[in-house]
């Protein structure tokens, strides 16, 4: 069909869709070089006048070598990074069921508020009298976190979850030292299902890690904990809900067993999103727990950070919290910045985790999220997160295998690869086929306690219609596996910006930065 100007208005005979292009681009999917391949050393995308003449005070340390970094004009930079962004999958692109990562919606009002000059354009060492509102944010956030966890104190400054773990374990080490048991109490119990950060954190500060086997139902047995705990036990690091998607039903008995041995209970709060407003760690015997503001409280993951990992502490550990912390006094908000000053207020701060006061930009976003939800919305969010995960479980249980049976889970559901046995399709293949269907894969091969793990966390941000399509897609893929359509999996992804990557090659001879091509030597004449 042609319109009156002769423009075709219906597609004609179509060539096959693997049609090659001159540029190698595929319409919106663009090949984008590195800035070092397109930028020019003399180009800059900023305009500054040369300074008036002055006498250098660099003391002879002028940089004489070329830095070697090209610049881009503003339009070039804009296009470069927009094109790169189009090769990325985010929560706003589609369902992002990455287990234990809580990829929930990131409200944009939080971004707007974090960019208010009163928050973003404030220096950490301005006079305290000029930052009273910033300290009020920290104080208010602390109040919310303590109410939601039922704990006694909070150390806000850790920069991410693993940093929060480190902070909590340092508080425990300081408390042990204060009791004169530093030489003897140095073992930390870590269940096999724990995140890798837990044993890494404990080892970093010279605790000896003792693994705790997970029992057949996917949880930790308090009798095993009791048998492993003794006078050398410093702590247990327990994730609850755990990484199998299950609430540790014997958590109180586990806490009692650890406390009876004189140790402390560190809880990994990565999965707190399942229980906000439903249960409080302080009621479960927890002594320290970090909270990933970038998981439970929606601050953006940003491609791998920045996060924030405040740690809540029990009455026993509260005195050891690191500096800085905020005090609310009759004269307004005060900031306690040194260990000596903390001692003046009766505290035994173990030290400092980071320069300045932590991730203020994340505090603002998390507090905005909390105010938006309120007590009622926070509880509803946890209930919806748990409901969504169980709905996925209920709708896939007949096709995929559940290592711990078809029983209620918390906010994430764990499948294993028993159902893939002898199909020629691995968990990784299945995950890559999901990419072709427009989904980010679930967490794969974690936790380590089940074979070929697939950990699905839909979060509360998904509608029922979205979940139904996701479930239908996974069912279709599962049926394809059973029909023997292995190529759909083993070659996947077919439709992503790149095909499956050669990770072995990357590690064998690492290329970690751009190096300009060497001039080709003249062939011997």
């Amino acid at each position, binding site marked *: 069909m042609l319109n009156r100007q002769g423009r075709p208005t219906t597609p004609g005979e179509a060539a096959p869709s693997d049609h090659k292009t001159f540029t190698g681009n595929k319409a919106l999917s663009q090949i984008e070089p590195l800035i070092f391949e397109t930028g020019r050393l003399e180009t800059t995308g900023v305009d*500054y006048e040369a300074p008036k003449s002055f006498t250098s005070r660099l003391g002879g*340390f002028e940089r004489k070598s070329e830095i070697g*970094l090209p610049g881009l004009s503003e339009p070039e930079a804009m296009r470069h990074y927009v094109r790169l962004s189009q090769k990325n999958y985010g929560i706003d692109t589609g369902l992002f069921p990455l287990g234990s990562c809580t990829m929930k919606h990131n409200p944009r009002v939080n971004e707007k508020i974090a960019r208010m000059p009163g928050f973003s354009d404030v220096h950490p060492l301005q006079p305290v009298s000029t930052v009273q509102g910033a300290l009020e944010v920290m104080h208010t956030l602390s109040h919310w976190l303590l109410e939601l966890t039922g704990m006694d104190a909070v150390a806000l400054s850790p920069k991410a979850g693993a940093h929060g773990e480190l902070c909590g374990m340092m508080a425990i080490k300081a408390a042990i030292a204060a009791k004169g048991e530093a030489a003897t109490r140095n073992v930390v119990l870590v269940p096999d299902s724990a995140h890798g*950060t837990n044993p890494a954190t404990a080892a970093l500060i010279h605790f000896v890690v003792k693994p705790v086997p997970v029992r057949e139902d996917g949880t930790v047995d308090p009798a095993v904990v009791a048998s492993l705990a003794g006078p050398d036990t410093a702590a247990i690091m327990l994730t609850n809900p755990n990484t199998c998607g299950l*609430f540790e039903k014997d958590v109180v008995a586990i806490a009692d067993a650890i406390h009876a041995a004189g140790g402390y209970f560190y809880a990994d709060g990565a999965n707190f999103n399942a229980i906000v407003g439903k249960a409080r760690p302080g009621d479960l015997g927890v002594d320290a727990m970090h909270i990933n503001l970038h998981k439970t409280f929606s601050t953006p993951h940003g491609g791998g*950070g920045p996060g924030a990992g405040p740690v809540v502490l029990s009455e026993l550990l509260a005195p050891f919290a690191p500096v800085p912390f905020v005090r609310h006094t009759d004269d307004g908000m005060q900031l306690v910045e040194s260990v000596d000053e903390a001692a003046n207020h009766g505290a035994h701060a173990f*030290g400092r985790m980071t320069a300045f006061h932590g991730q203020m930009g994340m505090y603002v976003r998390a507090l905005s999220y909390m105010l938006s939800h309120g007590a009622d919305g926070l509880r509803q969010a946890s209930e919806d997160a748990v409901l969504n995960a169980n709905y996925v479980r209920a709708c896939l249980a007949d096709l995929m295998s559940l290592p711990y049976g078809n029983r209620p889970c918390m906010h994430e559901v764990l499948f294993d690869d028993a159902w893939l046995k002898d199909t020629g399709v691995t968990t990784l293949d299945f995950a890559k086929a999901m990419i072709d269907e427009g989904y980010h894969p679930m967490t794969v091969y974690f936790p380590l306690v089940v074979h070929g793990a697939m950990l699905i966390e839909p979060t509360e941000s998904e509608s029922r219609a979205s979940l139904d399509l996701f479930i239908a897609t996974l069912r279709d893929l599962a049926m394809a596996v059973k029909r023997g359509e292995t190529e759909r999996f083993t070659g996947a992804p077919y439709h992503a910006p790149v095909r499956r990557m050669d990770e072995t090659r990357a590690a064998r001879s*690492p290329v970690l930065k751009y190096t300009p091509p060497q001039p080709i030597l003249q062939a011997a004449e």
Partner: protein
Amino acid sequence: MRYLPLTPDDRAGMLAKIGVDHIDALFADIPSDRLLKHLPTLPLHKGEIEVERVMGRMASRNVSASSVPFFVGAGAYKHHVPATVDHLIQRSEFLTSYTPYQPEIAQGTLQYLFEFQTQVAALTGMDVANASMYDGSTGCGEAVLMAHRITKRNKAVLSGGLHPHYADVVHTLSQMAEAECVTLAPDVSGREDILSQIDGTVSCVVVQTPDFFGNLRDLRAIADKCHANGALLIAVFTEVMSLGLITPPGEMGADIVVGEGQSIGNALNFGGPYVGLFATKSQYVRQMPGRLCGETVDADGTRGFVLTLSTREQHIRRDKATSNICTNSGLCTLAFTIHMSLLGQTGLKRVAEINHANAVMLADELDTIKGVSVLNQSFFNEFAVRLPGNASHSVEQLAARHIMAGVPVSRLLPDAGLDDVLLVANTEVNSDDDRKAFVEALKEIL
């Protein structure tokens, strides 16, 4: 609630499909006596207008840097960031993505990390850089632990010119990791004798340049003595913009270079989030903490990027990992990379020159005030001045006159006997009028 798509009907239908009649049936593993019977005693949900109002009220109780002549530094610096940067980092595909564990749908993140690593290596004059740390101070702590792993020793010597918060972070970490840590006394002149501290028991020496007081430090002799004794030199910076103008630590023999990258691309944010830069020599790459992005090819032979050498990391190696770090500063590295791409070496050098020129002019003018003296022989954009009285007191008086004069050294070093010393930074954001206003106001209050 505007963020929750499920309707009451959805919930009822989904519970039916699951085969339970109440949501609490899904929470049955929580001991019933610990399940909360009531809502937490916190306010109920709020609309967007109300949230903005509550938060805006708190924001309005802070004095923002742009609203006054601003000379505060000491590890965080007010710079101009092009509008392009903040626009780009808010693109959904960057903002709402995760760590690039699925490289086929994360090439955007991976390619900018590769660009970031290349930029950091070039700026510091080192072979390789990682994909970032939380900030300069935590990077400094990790560098010390890395040196201990390499040298199989456990004693660090910290310069008295190291930012006191950084020194505190290293001390805390060292104490907890049962390692030794010696810090020299603060020295405003930057002339401390650190060489005499270096012997065959030392794992690493940590020296900051420009140092906390602003002095530019010669690292060459320190590097030589370190290497003669089997120790490593860790060079630290808190003002990355200085690297546009001064000799990079890599050219002075540093083995590990760590620093704060906030100045490029990132706002002050009352102290965070920032971005830690971490670079080293090729031979130490497998002892590095943090993520590394590397080049490779896909199944079709097309160039692409992946996270690599992850057998160093906690999710693989658990208690044998080089660090426990997982999440780092992803989006802040993007901001850094975009701003650095806009600057290029030409723009970076120019803006660094302006910083230096502005600081020199301010130092010269302050030096003419009776009773005020600049204490530095050399500096980049920040220097120390001695005032005739208590510096904290002067800062408060000037703040009341809407001038942010700098950081009293006593705020970070209360026991150093430097109560009359003020750190003053001047960057490209202050105008000539801002500088004059500061100088005039200081004259008036003294």
